[in-house]
């Protein structure tokens, strides 16, 4: 149990709580084993922003059955990766296409000066969907 002061000290840099929480305990961090069937990968990121996001979704029966992410970048980038991996679970590719940047930003309370982290997330999903479509017979 944390008092408010403890929580503030624990997040001394004042990140938005949804970012801070995911940065500290990102679910689904990692990558699938090389030979996992049904895995699609999408990456995005720019050397200029010193950040890179990789999203992996395992699609089974037309729906996302499992998800992994890797990220190099600021805590917001990492939180975006973690959120996307969660969010994607159970969705169909068509639903993934409906990713709303504003929902992503609102959920993680991403301010304007970090908008590029959210955009990187969107780019990763797009890259993943493009790969998915290419792979469709």
């Amino acid at each position, binding site marked *: 149990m944390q008092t408010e002061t403890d929580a503030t000290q624990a997040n001394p840099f004042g*990140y938005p709580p949804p970012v801070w929480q995911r940065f500290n305990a990102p679910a689904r961090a990692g990558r699938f084993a090389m030979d996992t069937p049904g895995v699609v990968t999408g990456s995005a990121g720019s050397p200029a922003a010193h950040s890179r*996001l990789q999203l992996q979704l395992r699609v089974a029966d037309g729906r996302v059955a499992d998800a992994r992410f890797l990220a190099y970048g600021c805590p917001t980038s990492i939180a975006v990766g973690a959120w996307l991996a969660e969010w994607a679970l159970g969705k169909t590719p068509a639903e993934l296409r409906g990713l709303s940047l504003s929902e992503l930003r609102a959920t993680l309370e991403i301010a304007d000066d970090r908008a590029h982290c959210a955009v990187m997330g969107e780019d990763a999903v797009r890259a993943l969907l493009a790969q998915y479509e290419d792979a469709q017979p």
Partner: protein
Amino acid sequence: MIYLDYAATTPLDARVFDAMLPYLRPDGVFANPASTHGPGFKARAAVERARAQVAALIGAEPGEIVWTSGATESNNLAIKGALEFRGAGATGRALHVVTSRTEHKCVLDTCRHLEAQGCNGQPVRVTYLKPNADGVVTPEDVLAALTPETLLVSLMWVNNEIGVVQDIARLAQLLRSRGVLLHVDAAQAAGKLAIDLANTPIDLLSLSAHKTYGPKGIGALFVRRRPRARLQPQMHGGGHEQGMRSGTLATHQIVGMGAAFEVAAQRRASDEQHLTALRELLWSRLQALPRILRNGNASLMAPHLLNVSFEGVEGESLRAALPELAVSSGSACSSATAEPSYVLRALGRDDELANASLRFSFGRTTTVADIETAAAAVIRQVQWLRELSPLWTA
């Protein structure tokens, strides 16, 4: 919370705190040291005792110590004041200053201001020497940069970000024989290195109390008497401090600086041993991580500092991942801006690596346990961030 940011500032030494109280208490010795009545004289006597204490640590005479509000002011006063005084007669050719790219921001910003505005209507040219990859600016580098118009060399003794110690003693000898004024920023050196100005011909030397277990907001400038280093004051007023710095003297602050420097004189040797041991312990523990770089020449280091770059992690996340560790990334004075450290850039680190660096700095109260805990946290979090990175290949 483990505090490893003693290069940014230190807590008061308990003896410093005790020494200050009688001059701070509501019923204490509070009169203005410039007042010519009994209580004023009493405050004045405390100021003069402290002046002697500060002088003693650096082998100076009390009359060579001018109180300022900190090393930022001391550096401003030394550089602008010396240039205005020395440049007063000159005409035509630009006044020339030699300094280095890895000086503290207050030196660099002062130099840039002089370049932009000139000095007494005369142009000013500044040479910013690039240190080698170890962070070292050799006396020979400095000599090579001198021109007949060079009035002043300003070089720091100990770098505040990487801890590299410059060979100021030899530089001072070389410059003295050439008649060029030498200013040394010793904010990070006082109490850490043995300084003996009686035998080191430095003309001007900047000091700060709060880097040495004294209070923040007080510093001093050593201004040599023989031969006399002359300055134009930068703070005009009632002519306090031999006309070099006006403003009411803050007795409790001055007493604190005096006490801190007296304690530093007593503890310098044992502090050095303690700090060096901690520094090397941390560095050896961090060897558990591959691909890390120690910044600055390890054999030319002040005892209290260790600056390490971590490949493959992003700087902001590295800091965010260590919220229980009060360390600095770059200088505290510059870390309000998120720009990568210009000091590490000058050493040849790229932006990314400069950003992914931590400055650990140690103090009297730092324990071995602090170092072990800090090392474990850094190792764990660097490993974690590397594992999380799609770019990392071990």
